[in-house]
């Protein structure tokens, strides 16, 4: 992928693509030959490799879900004020905390997870991952959940709450057409998750019922200002054989390969990474060309680890912090190469001049 930063290589790669398109009409790579009848080894091998590295052909529609917008959206901040009020309201309280009220619903929706690949998802608010919920530790959350889906669902938050608000027991499932009001205080600070806990659990999870739940430390200055990004690692079992056929950060396979995440050189970047992959026991995130500080579960303000690859179990999450030193493109992906090739692959595009 170095070619992306280098104009000379980019020209070459476009030519290679054209050549690849031309070769597409031939049935087999074995048949490739130059005009004198000798095998043309360069054109036979390079475009094949380049093709694999470029991800899928075509683009996914971002009309109903835009992974770029999702990265920096929480509490429905992507919606215009009037629309936002339907789903999110905040009221300051006298003790300095905030009452945050949410309207979440479950609904069946067919979503596009790779160009031309549609998945019959179960969603929170029509999107996978569900909307990111974000509060400050000590805030009071009031979440009205309406099940508009075709199966029993619910909300199960990770974090402190009384048992009646856990949403996981069989009798706590919300039947289609019913609703339930979840109320609890946001704690502890960190990066958490919410998901449906209806049975069979693995099906309800892989169908798309999950989202990120971020709780900020009580002091606003506890974490330095940063460009903050939400990444939910997920996979999709498109043929219901209990194995994933597609993987991604934020649902759409290879999306950030085609639309790199733009960041600024010298600016602190903070990633809230939640692993919601089902069926595969672990997932990981590897970032090229740099290291990041790890705050596991985000429950400490002190980093415990500096690395370039973090492993996450199902439901495990972490805050990662780093600063891009060099302008250019940097790959990030699951270090399970199979996941990467099936969509869990993206690029950061750092812009600006190198900090000295």
């Amino acid at each position, binding site marked *: 992928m170095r070619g992306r930063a280098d104009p000379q290589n980019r020209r070459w790669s476009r030519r290679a693509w054209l050549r690849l398109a031309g070769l597409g009409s031939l049935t087999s790579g074995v048949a490739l030959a130059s005009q004198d009848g000798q095998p043309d080894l360069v054109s036979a091998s390079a475009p094949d490799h380049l093709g694999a590295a470029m991800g899928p052909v075509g683009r996914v529609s971002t009309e*109903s879900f835009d992974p770029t917008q999702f990265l920096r959206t929480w509490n429905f901040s992507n919606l215009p004020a*009037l*629309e936002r009020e339907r789903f999110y309201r905040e009221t300051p309280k006298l003790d300095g905390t905030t009452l945050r009220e949410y309207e979440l*619903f479950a*609904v069946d929706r067919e*979503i596009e997870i790779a160009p031309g690949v549609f998945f019959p998802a179960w969603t929170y608010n*029509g999107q996978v991952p569900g909307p990111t919920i974000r509060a400050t530790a000590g805030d009071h959350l009031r979440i009205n959940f309406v099940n*508009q889906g075709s199966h029993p669902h619910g909300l199960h938050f990770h974090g402190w709450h009384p048992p009646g608000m856990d949403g996981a027991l069989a009798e706590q499932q919300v039947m289609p*057409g019913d609703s339930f009001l979840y109320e609890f205080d946001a704690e502890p600070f960190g990066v958490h998750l919410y998901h449906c806990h209806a049975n069979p659990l693995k099906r309800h999870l892989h169908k798309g019922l999950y989202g990120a739940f971020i709780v900020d430390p009580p002091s606003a200055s506890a974490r330095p200002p940063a460009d903050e990004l939400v990444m939910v690692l997920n996979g999709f079992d498109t043929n219901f054989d209990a194995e994933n056929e597609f993987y991604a950060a934020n649902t759409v396979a290879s999306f950030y390969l085609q639309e790199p995440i733009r960041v600024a050189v010298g600016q602190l970047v903070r990633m809230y990474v939640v692993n919601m992959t089902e069926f595969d026991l672990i997932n990981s995130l590897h970032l090229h060309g740099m290291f990041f500080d790890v705050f596991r579960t985000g429950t400490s303000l002190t980093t415990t680890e500096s690395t370039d690859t973090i492993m996450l179990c199902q439901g495990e999450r972490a805050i990662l912090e780093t600063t891009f030193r060099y302008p250019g493109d940097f790959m990030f992906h699951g270090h399970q190469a199979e996941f990467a090739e099936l969509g869990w692959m993206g690029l950061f595009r750092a812009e600006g001049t190198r900090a000295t």
Partner: protein
Amino acid sequence: MVGRQHRRLQPGRRRIRRWQGAGGAVAGVLVAAVAVVSLVILLPLSVSTRAAVRNITLVARDMAFYVEGGTVPNPTIRLAAGEEVRFVLRNLDPGITHNLAIEGWELETAYLDGDASATLRVHVPDQPGNQTYVCVPHRGMMRGVIEVVAGNRR
């Protein structure tokens, strides 16, 4: 002459030949005659329809109904008693199935899977009163009131 021509031609080519020469003229006259007759039949109907039927376009978006161009979710819709109304529902939630039903009047559109529209023709009863309109699969969120008011027949 036309008959002789037919006998000479292959069956598959008849239609083509018919539009050439004398046969074509005959067919043209026939088509024109049919058009005039149907126009005479349909014209009074379409004129009366345009005068009496009110179109109300609703869009289904983000799990709510909106009057097209409106910003109020699930708005109250006021109809005049005895009025003729045609509801047009457009689904702007790709991948989500919506419809429009006024169950008190036993009226319902087909289910739409996004980027499609359906119509519901309603002869509003003469008695004032309220009805509920819903999207059947999402009645928990997509639900509004139809107010039938007396008089003011359009």
